[in-house]
């Protein structure tokens, strides 16, 4: 079982009032609040990705992470998105622990002056998370459980 762990990376952005967040957490998060807090008048385009436990016959899933490495990876992926696409703001929150159908799993909010960078940055980040950040899911069904195979098995 992943140990309880929470990491918050803060850096001033815009008017310095609201801070970016890179977090792995056992707590739920509020997508609406994350989106609202990311807004600023420098960011003409905000693209968000919200991943939710989908109802495809499972009863729930347990998420586990190598917390310390996952956090470093998320921070590095954020920096890479900034360098590659010129995005100005990145928030990433990823939950671990037992989740039910409909629960939030992950949210990424990317802000940029223009839309293309925001889309590219956001999709890049979720793709990189799925292929390289040490997080795993075990799905529970009425019949038992199974580890979700990685996309890059």
């Amino acid at each position: 079982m992943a140990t309880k762990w929470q990491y918050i990376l803060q850096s001033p952005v815009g008017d310095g009032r609201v801070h970016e967040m890179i977090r792995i957490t056992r707590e739920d998060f509020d997508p609406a609040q994350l989106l609202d807090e990311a807004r600023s008048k420098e960011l003409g385009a905000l693209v968000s990705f919200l991943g939710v436990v989908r109802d495809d016959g499972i009863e729930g899933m347990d998420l586990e992470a190598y917390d310390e490495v996952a956090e470093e990876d998320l921070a590095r992926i954020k920096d890479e998105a900034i360098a590659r696409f010129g995005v100005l703001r990145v928030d990433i929150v990823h939950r671990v622990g037992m989740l039910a159908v409909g629960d939030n799993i992950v949210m990424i909010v990317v802000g940029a002056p223009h839309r293309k960078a925001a889309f590219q940055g956001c999709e890049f980040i979720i793709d990189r998370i799925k292929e390289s950040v040490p997080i795993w899911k075990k799905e529970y069904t009425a019949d038992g459980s199974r580890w979700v195979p990685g996309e890059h098995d």
Partner: protein
Amino acid sequence: MMSVRVRAFARFRELFGDRLEVAVSSPAMIRDVVMALGQVNADGLLELLDGEGRVKNSVIILVNRERITGKGREEHPVADGDEVAIYPPVAGG
């Protein structure tokens, strides 16, 4: 002998536990640490190895949080007190 901290995740955590210490003779390499897991769970060790007894490519290995890759990774040195992590392909997001 020296002591190496091992962390295992997901399916491998179920086989070996999430945190354990293994004793290996010095100097040691990754291969020694992996083989020492056979003392914890001999059947579990077989899941890590391919037909030639090499660690499967799909098994990801980190030493002190740095991923070790390439053909020669099993010969990568491991020092007393190092943290060796093993895990299957990731599936987050």
